């Protein structure tokens, strides 16, 4: 291995510091990590997944199965990176993975000698099979297996970088910036379509980048690029991989914005996730060279032939000086020729008996020794190739004589080419097998909005590549309304033997008995050998999908890009069928591994989900409130004084409300304007109780059911005007109720002239509760709040300062209480006005915890009781239901199962002792074993300052008849058992004297 003094597409004026394990690599701008490794003489890069066999660099692209490494350190550490597509940058550090204590001396390599025990399916047979009644043994073993096997180690540190998502819209998305893609973009761009051209590489050109610098291809690409850059309707994205094609013509792309530098600079993101909505797409994704299968074909030093040419011509790295090229097609002749001209000794073993004179002559002119009807039956060496065993072969790849030993430090293989059809397959299913090219191609049909072009569609020549790309681009533009002239098709340029020209589909070199000479791998990344496929076949696996899962073939980062066709070939042989009959698996996104961070984008940390703030929010924060999440809302939980904890604070706050007066921010309540001539009828239908008699100036508590008869929500609705109502809902169900109402009005009740509009954002709301509430509000407002003028369930307008508000008389706490509805922009002003005026009344703010304690004392149901499984009867709300009218749920609530008298019903529980119950605990009678689901469950719990004891609400079978009974409360999770007396859930002031006072 050596860096050549001239050539390549690297910038020799920009040397880079790159390190792999403990070795500094001679890298330049334009290198990849793998080219720098080769230039630095690194042959051993990693260890294999299962057997810990030595792994080297096998390819020069995204299909790389062996050179998988850790990148970077600290919180930017990244496992399982493919060295072949990792751009070198100054300061890049990489380390080997899956090896201990070192890459050179890896204890795990013992697995290689134990491989007979680790054949396909060994997990199932060894650890599960003998223990059919339990997976316990497997679970124990799995820990060790996972440690021994596998890929890299991720970091637990937070990723310091940012990622973003972008939407894009275009007429034509061209995927792949090689010759076919450039041709497609030219045609579509010239026609005037909005074009996005995306290329995963840093440079455009595709296969041309593997040609010697200044070849005809370079001129062709430069010319095309120049024209495209001049078109303002063409957008070009490089370092961008199209990883997914989805229904609705949506495509997922990842742009690696800052992966090629040490850390993002100037606030830029690390990666960008594009969701592209394209009316048409052209898939010009090229083809990937296929391996040949023979003994030891996974040794470092066995490499795809095309990759050796890429390293030579793009990176000026001669991967070896003593090379055996093994092929079954013409394309490897160009490789052999280029390597020989760069100074290597090259022997070319062609499995075909009669390669064309043209290619043989080409090779011989470069002093390449050509051996027709020969194949490599085994690669030999320790941690890298030292010999190639060559053998005469017949057309099927069976040895016909004795192997001969040839010194070699590189075996370059070409078993044909596999079109990259992944995106097409993601959209349209399984590709079809094309016999003459021995590969799967898209089953192109008219009407498909994603069409393949170039080698991705098995083009037969470079001229065909250009023609296909140009035609698909023009067709796509026409289809989206741009039938303008696309001009003259670009000329083809001179190139070597085209991809898999003259291919003979022999894929393995075997002994005359059909055996491999040594371990012969089909899937390098998951250590799947020919013998594993044979075993799966013997065990009856006939489906390709089952084969994949049983052997793990085609999994991991390369997703079978190299292995699939060879595996199918073996399976077809074993089953005596041809490949189309055996079929192939369907590809799924992503095409290549993508960062979860890019998919997440900004939606993490404080942007994990949207948050919702009351208009008074900042007062709470500024005044020391501890905040809590309530759905999307951030609400004041409690206002600690001194060192108070939650318990001390909420007990104090609740006590204070009972003894003095408190106020709580209830802006989070759902608020819906119900307007229109049929508003009362609407309410009559959606609520269980009647509304037609409700007078303006009054409000009423209402319950609404789902159509299946279960309780959906409750709340109070005020009549503001003739056709104008103000509905309040629980905080949790506000959106659900609005959507339900809107749905009914737009479907079942289109006859009703009603509009429902959320006004939750329009109104701040403050509940003022306590015996001094009236006195306080009378002092700060102009309203007459006397019992006679404003009894319970009435509302009035009022002014506080110069702010017009509404005051609703209603109570959630059981105290004399009012709800103030204030235009949101004045919410904080009114709160502060109340707070200032409240000092002489000893007014204190209280939070959601004490609000909950007060409502439990009073016995009001809330979210924990309205949880979707309870009926009105269960909750003691049956009395609200009108018998004079139908309403949503009125029929199905009468189902037999919901009328069962044994159903759990709402009860109060007075807990014995100093420890409170946990919500969700189960209820059991005193006698008998505490087993199963019990007689019911605890829904809400609190310490009651008013009663001086722990209380709870729960739903208990036959609850009405069990008042006075002592039962057990069992919390299986916390291993806690308590005793409690069953009582009415109206713990405090059951007659309502305080709230009606």
């Amino acid at each position: 291995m050596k860096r050549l003094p001239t050539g390549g597409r690297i910038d020799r004026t920009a040397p880079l510091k790159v390190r792999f394990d403990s070795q500094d690599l001679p890298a330049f701008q334009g290198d990849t990590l793998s080219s720098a490794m080769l230039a630095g003489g690194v042959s051993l890069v990693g260890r294999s997944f299962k057997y810990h066999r030595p792994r080297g660099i096998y390819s020069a692209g995204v299909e790389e199965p062996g050179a998988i490494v850790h990148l970077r350190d600290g919180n930017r550490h990244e496992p399982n990176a493919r060295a072949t597509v990792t751009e070198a940058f100054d300061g890049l550090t990489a380390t080997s993975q899956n090896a201990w204590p070192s890459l050179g001396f890896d204890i795990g390599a013992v697995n290689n000698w134990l491989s007979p025990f680790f054949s396909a399916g060994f997990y199932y047979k060894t650890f599960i099979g003998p223990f059919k009644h339990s997976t316990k043994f497997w679970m124990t073993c799995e820990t060790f297996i996972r440690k021994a096997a596998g890929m890299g180690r991720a970091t637990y540190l937070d990723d310091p970088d940012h990622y973003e998502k972008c939407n894009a819209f275009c007429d034509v998305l061209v995927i792949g910036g090689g010759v076919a893609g450039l041709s497609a973009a030219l045609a579509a761009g010239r026609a005037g379509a909005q074009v996005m051209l995306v290329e995963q590489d840093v440079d455009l050109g595709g296969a041309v980048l593997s040609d010697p610098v200044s070849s005809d291809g370079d001129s062709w690409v430069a010319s095309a690029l120049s024209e495209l850059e001049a078109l303002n309707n063409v957008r070009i994205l490089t370092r961008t991989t199209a990883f997914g094609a989805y229904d609705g013509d949506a495509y997922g792309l990842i742009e690696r914005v800052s992966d090629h530098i040490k850390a993002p600079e100037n606030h830029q993101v690390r990666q960008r996730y594009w969701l592209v909505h394209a009316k048409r797409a052209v898939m010009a994704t090229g083809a990937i060279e296929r391996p040949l299968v023979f003994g030891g074909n996974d040794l470092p030093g066995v490499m795809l032939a095309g990759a050796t040419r890429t390293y030579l011509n793009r990176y000026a790295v001669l991967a070896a000086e003593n090379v055996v090229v093994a092929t079954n097609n013409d394309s490897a002749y160009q490789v052999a020729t280029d390597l020989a001209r760069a100074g290597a000794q090259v022997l070319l073993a062609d499995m075909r008996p009669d390669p064309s004179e043209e290619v043989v002559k080409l090779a011989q002119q470069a002093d390449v020794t050509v051996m027709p009807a020969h194949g490599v039956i085994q690669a030999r060496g320790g941690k890298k190739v030292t010999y190639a065993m060559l053998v005469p072969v017949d057309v099927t790849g069976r040895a016909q004589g004795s192997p001969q030993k040839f010194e070699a430090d590189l075996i370059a293989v070409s078993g044909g080419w596999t079109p990259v059809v992944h995106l097409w397959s993601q959209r349209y299913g399984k590709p079809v097998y094309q016999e003459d090219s021995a590969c799967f191609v898209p089953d192109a049909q008219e009407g498909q909005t994603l069409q393949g072009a170039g080698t991705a569609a098995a083009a037969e020549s470079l001229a065909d590549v250009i023609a296909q790309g140009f035609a698909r681009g023009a067709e796509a533009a026409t289809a989206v309304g741009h039938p303008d002239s696309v001009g003259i098709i670009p000329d083809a340029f001179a190139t070597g033997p085209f991809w898999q020209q003259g291919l003979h589909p022999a894929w393995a070199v075997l002994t005359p008995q059909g055996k491999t000479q040594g371990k012969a791998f089909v899937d390098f990344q998951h250590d799947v050998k020919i013998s594993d496929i044979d075993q799966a076949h013997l065990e009856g696996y006939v489906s390709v999908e089952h084969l994949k899962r049983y052997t793990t073939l085609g999994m991991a980062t390369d997703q079978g890009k190299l292995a699939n066709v060879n595996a199918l070939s073996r399976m077809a042989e074993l089953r005596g069928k041809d490949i189309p009959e055996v079929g192939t698996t369907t590809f799924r996104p992503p095409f290549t591994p993508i960062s979860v961070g890019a998919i997440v984008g900004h939606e993490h940390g404080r942007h994990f989900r949207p948050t919702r703030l009351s208009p008074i929010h900042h007062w709470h924060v500024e005044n020391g409130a501890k905040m809590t999440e309530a759905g999307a809302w951030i609400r004041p939980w409690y206002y600690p004084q001194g060192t108070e904890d939650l318990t001390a604070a909420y007990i104090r706050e609740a006590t204070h409300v009972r003894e003095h007066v408190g106020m709580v921010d209830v802006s989070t309540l759902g608020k819906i304007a119900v307007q229109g001539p049929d508003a009362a009828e609407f309410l009559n239908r959606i609520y269980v109780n009647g509304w037609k008699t409700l007078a303006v100036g009054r409000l009423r508590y209402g319950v609404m059911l789902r159509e299946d008869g279960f309780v959906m929500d409750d709340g109070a609705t005020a009549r503001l005007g003739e056709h104008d109502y103000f509905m309040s809902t629980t905080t949790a169900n506000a959106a659900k109720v609005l959507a339900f109402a809107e749905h009914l009005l737009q479907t079942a009740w289109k006859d009703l002239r009603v509009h429902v509009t959320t006004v939750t954002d329009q109104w701040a709301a403050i509940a003022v509760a306590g015996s001094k509430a009236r006195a306080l509000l009378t002092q700060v407002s102009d309203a007459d709040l006397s019992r006679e003028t404003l009894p319970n369930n009435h509302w009035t307008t009022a002014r506080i300062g110069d702010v017009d508000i509404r005051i609703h008389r209603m109570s959630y706490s059981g105290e004399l209480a009012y709800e103030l509805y204030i235009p949101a922009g004045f919410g904080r002003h009114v709160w502060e006005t109340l707070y200032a005026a409240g000092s002489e009344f000893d007014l204190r703010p209280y939070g959601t915890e004490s609000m909950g304690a007060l409502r439990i004392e009073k016995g009001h149901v809330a979210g924990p009781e309205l949880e979707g499984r309870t009926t009105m009867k269960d909750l003691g709300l049956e009395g609200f239901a009108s018998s004079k009218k139908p309403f949503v749920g009125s029929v199905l609530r009468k189902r037999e199962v919901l009328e069962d008298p044994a159903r759990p019903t709402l009860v109060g529980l007075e807990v014995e002792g100093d420890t409170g119950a946990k919500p969700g605990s189960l209820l059991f009678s005193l006698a008998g074993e505490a087993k199963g689901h019990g007689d019911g469950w605890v829904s809400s719990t609190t310490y009651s300052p008013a009663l001086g004891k722990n209380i709870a609400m729960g739903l208990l079978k036959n609850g009405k008849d069990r008042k006075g009974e002592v039962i057990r409360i069992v919390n299986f999770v916390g291993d806690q058992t308590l005793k409690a007396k069953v009582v009415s859930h109206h713990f405090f002031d059951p007659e309502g004297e305080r709230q009606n006072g």
Partner: protein
Amino acid sequence: MAEMLSPLHTKAVPGRYGAAGNAGVTLSTRPIANLWQIAGWQGFGDAAAPVLAALGLTDGGSYRRSEQSGEVTAWRIAPDKILIEGAGDLSAHTSDDLVTLDLGHARAAITLSGPAARDLLMQLSAVDCTPSAFGLGEFMQTGIHHVGVLIQCTGPDNFDVLVPGTWAETVWEVLHDNALPHGLNIDEAA
């Protein structure tokens, strides 16, 4: 006199943030005054016509294009609903065929401008905001960070984003953080 507090009063802190160089995005807020919704049913057009005429409007625009008359802007947010800003109290127009609703405190207005403003919108909203698809005078109702918003194009690279007040801070923060790579300027609230 009580001051009407914007939901974004703590957020719009003038300054230069994020990437160096020319600011790609400028964020600010502006007050909303007199935002009302008028709504009706079958025959809404006839019911709304006198209201619109009184405001100097014709038909309240289309579902994509707002209509403007002086300081008054109308958005047809549904076939039978129009949102009107700047027209004062419309409650007097309430009838059996038309309901009116004050939403003047229900929204906050974020103003967004700059050469990268469209890019920022397309980062956060799955709609086409390129000039050919979203031009001056057009509006769209979409979502930013799962919050329903109305975006009005007010200039070549200028937009108003009407956000429900209680969600305003979360939308602002998402706009803010995603604008940093573009270079962010925050202007004094209008």
